[in-house]
């Protein structure tokens, strides 16, 4: 077995594992990553993929035509989920521009922490190869890292005998069981208020005012100052509401350290196509997700255009949900009509959940499993994916292009040219 598979199930996009074809599922070799194993297990095939309309199985062509017919009737669609790869994102932007849809990723709320901090102040970041090559201090702030990104420390090279890392610190969380053996570990439980702890840390570094200073945080500040290349790891999904404040503060700490030594932040997030779609929609339109592309140009509002909020406020009249990864992640329940693009297993679950009314389901390939593709890694590097099997499923891009072809011509009024105003 060639270790040539790239795992699409989290944004570390680990390459170098092997897959063995089992009787039903694909079996992972070269890693005991629970997230990869769960991803593979959930995608084991039991039944033939099926498209359906309002719960009734139909030929894929029929479902596609019905989806196009319904989509054309919506006056203000929402493109949600957006769990797809680069090619899917390209096609979905065209669909958004053509239908005047609002768009947000399924994890848009989590994605927002980093985006707001970036838009307000910017960031100092690094990538996996840099960590492997030079990070002598890695501090995980409010995250165990490996709880959701099981291979993270291995990808940082912390299990290698030649790692430059001299200390691994967890701030505000317990040390995880899955941890490198060679690097000395330190846990700083903190006060239970991560933002307050980070403020203290900043105060210890002289960048923010602060009164009482925990000795452990003061000693962490000293460690950071002494490090040649410190990396502060954070994870968007573990942040509380208003996480942007946390990210901003963390970047302030990094910027301060860079006044005299070297340091950088590293964000864990953007799985399930979130970073990919963020990148693609941003380069095409000039603005990130939570926007609307229309004849008047592109309108962006990171708060008002949150997908769930739009559904809750009935600000849209139809939901096109795209999620080509985990089949168990179902679209949000809503009384609105839905068109759902998902892996075959999602179709089964949706029907069983009696959520099939006013819903058209179209099965699609999972990138990196059923089809080749490209995804953005958590640190911004684009990683190519290869297909591990061929079940004859179309990719999101192909289904969306067919939808575009079937939309009524008068619906095509908004050309790419107009969007690019």
């Amino acid at each position, binding site marked *: 077995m060639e270790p040539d598979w790239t795992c699409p199930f989290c944004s570390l996009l680990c390459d170098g594992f092997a897959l063995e074809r089992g009787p039903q599922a694909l079996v992972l070799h070269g890693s005991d990553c629970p997230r990869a194993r769960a991803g593979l297990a959930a995608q084991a095939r039991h039944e033939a993929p099926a498209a359906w309309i309002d719960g009734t199985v139909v030929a894929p062509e029929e479902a596609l035509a019905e989806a196009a017919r319904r989509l054309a009737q919506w006056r203000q669609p929402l493109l949600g989920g957006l769990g797809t790869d680069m090619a899917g994102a390209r096609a979905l932007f065209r669909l958004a521009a053509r239908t005047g849809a609002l768009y947000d990723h399924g994890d848009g709320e989590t994605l927002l922490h980093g985006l707001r901090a970036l838009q307000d102040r910017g960031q100092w970041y690094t990538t996996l*190869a840099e960590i492997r090559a030079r990070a002598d201090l890695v501090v995980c702030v409010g995250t165990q890292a490996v709880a959701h990104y099981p291979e993270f420390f291995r990808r940082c090279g912390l299990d290698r005998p030649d790692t430059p890392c001299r200390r691994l610190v967890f701030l505000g969380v317990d040390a995880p069981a899955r941890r490198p053996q060679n690097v000395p570990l330190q846990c700083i439980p903190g006060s239970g208020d991560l933002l307050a702890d980070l403020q203290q840390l900043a105060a210890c570094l002289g960048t923010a005012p602060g009164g009482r200073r925990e000795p452990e945080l003061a000693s962490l500040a000293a460690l950071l100052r002494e490090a*040649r290349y410190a990396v502060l790891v954070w994870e968007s999904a573990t942040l509380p509401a208003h996480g942007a404040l946390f990210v901003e503060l963390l970047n302030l700490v990094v910027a301060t350290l860079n006044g005299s030594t070297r340091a950088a932040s590293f964000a864990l997030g953007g799985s399930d196509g979130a970073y990919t779609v963020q990148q693609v929609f941003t380069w095409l339109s000039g603005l990130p997700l939570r926007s609307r592309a229309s004849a008047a140009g592109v309108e962006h509002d990171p708060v008002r255009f949150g997908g769930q909020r739009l559904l809750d406020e009935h600000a849209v009249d139809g939901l096109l949900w795209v999620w080509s990864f985990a089949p168990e992640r179902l679209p949000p329940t809503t009384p609105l009509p839905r068109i759902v693009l998902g892996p075959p297993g999602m179709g089964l679950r949706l029907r069983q959940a009696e959520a099939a009314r006013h819903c058209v389901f179209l099965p699609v390939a999972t990138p990196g499993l059923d089809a080749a593709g490209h995804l953005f890694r958590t640190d911004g590097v684009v990683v190519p994916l290869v297909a591990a099997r061929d079940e004859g499923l179309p990719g999101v891009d192909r289904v969306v292009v067919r939808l575009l072809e079937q939309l009524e011509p008068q619906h095509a009024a908004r050309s790419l040219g107009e969007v690019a105003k």
Partner: protein
Amino acid sequence: MSTRRLRGGRVFDPANGVNGEVRDIAMRDGRIVALEAREPVDEEIDAGGCIVLAGGIDLHSHIGGGKVNLARLLLPQQECRVCSPGTLATGLRYAEMGYTSVFEPAMAASNARHAHMEMGDVPIVDHGAYVMLGNDELFLELLSRGSEPQRLRDYVGWVVHATKALGVKVVNPAGISAFKFNQRRLDVDEPHVHWQVTPRQVITALARAVHELGLAHPLHIHASNLGVAGNIASTLATMEALEGLPGHLTHVQFHCYGAEGPRKFSSAALALAEALDAHPNCSIDIGQVLFGQTVTASGDTMRQHANADLAHPRKGILGDIECDSGCGVLPFRYREQSYVNALQWSIGLELFLQVRDPWRVVLTTDHPNGAPFTSYPHLMRLLMDKSFRDEQLARLHPEVAAESALKQITRELTLNEIAIMTRAAPARLLGLRDRGHLGAGAAADVAVYREQGDAEAMFSRAAWLFKDGEAVVREGRVVATPVGATHFAEPVFDAGVQRLLDDYSDRPLGVHKRYAVIGHDELCSCCNGGRLLPSACAARSV
């Protein structure tokens, strides 16, 4: 088979010695053809009252790759959209101005796929990219170990092949890497604190590798000490480091500062112009500064970090990337009343007007660093119209307005010279034999402008633009959005370089080694299905 004739336009085609003569230009199947005046055509277009040029070629504009997209994420404000437009808007605006080819100058090797994807989504224009080398740890390590030149050549060739680059760029030679080791400045003959190699060694070795591989475009050089007062010394030293081999010094305006005068910041444009006369192996593009809001996006983290406090609005992004490059994005507002900004504006124009050989000067603003590319028509008017230039100069910081060398410079660039700096010269410097001119057999990339006294108005809106023979712009409005093609070089190198890569890394360019090389099929999907235009390279010896 469709044939078109542009009848009666004044043609400026400097590569073929045509300077404003009234001629017909005929196109068939995407190519310029020689056609008898009476031969019937499918479409005849009256180009009377118009000037006819080859499609514009921008050889240095940050249109794709991680940095520009970070700039877009950083700047959602309406007033910043002009300097960081989306790819769709980018292609349309270039086409409206009559441009048909644009080259991304700073592709990170580890993220070449991203650059090709974004460029593939810039409609209409053809594109290509220069891959950044000279800060990658592998090259620096090879150099520090005294590796043979052919080894370095093969490695450079492999990276160009893997990333599907058209050329090679070096940004702050060894400086981006040095900054990762906390070195805060690096002069041309100063050693990198870890690898102990100097920028001079990097330039010499890379220029030789590029030359020996037979890449058409000379080593593309963003020199040391960008933006530092007195950096003319390191710029001249960089030219010397080429040891007579070809080199293209980019955005030289940012590298052309003296340290004279009460403010210890002065123009060194004349010194650079004279050095270019003495170094026929060197070419330049300017990186002109124009006033207003923009964003600076550079791989030069060492210099961007040093300038971070000057950002406007006060924010920025800095990153260390995959042991091969870096990224610095800072918004910036160039102000007429700032002494430094006004002098930068003056220095750029002085360079345009004082360098004698237009074939070695390319018109750029280093989009978006000096100004957005959409300000090219304004820049052209400044270069072509002395009284307009003087009016602008008079509005600037009083010391600059009073003392700028521009006051004494009477030269006004001609349409022929503009055609050289925006078409013929970049095509020649990139080795694009069938672009940048209107001779029979050339690609039918043709821009037609209504002739008028105001060059800015003229060059803002092409009356027609033809891309590979098809009309894509009519009266300044885009009428078709084909996918552009991708230019890349195909150098020949010793395949044994693979062993070298195996010895040094299990993850060359940041991914599993099996996927380090972008194949033609993958390139095509990254580039949105556009045509692939590989150029063969004939190996050379020093």
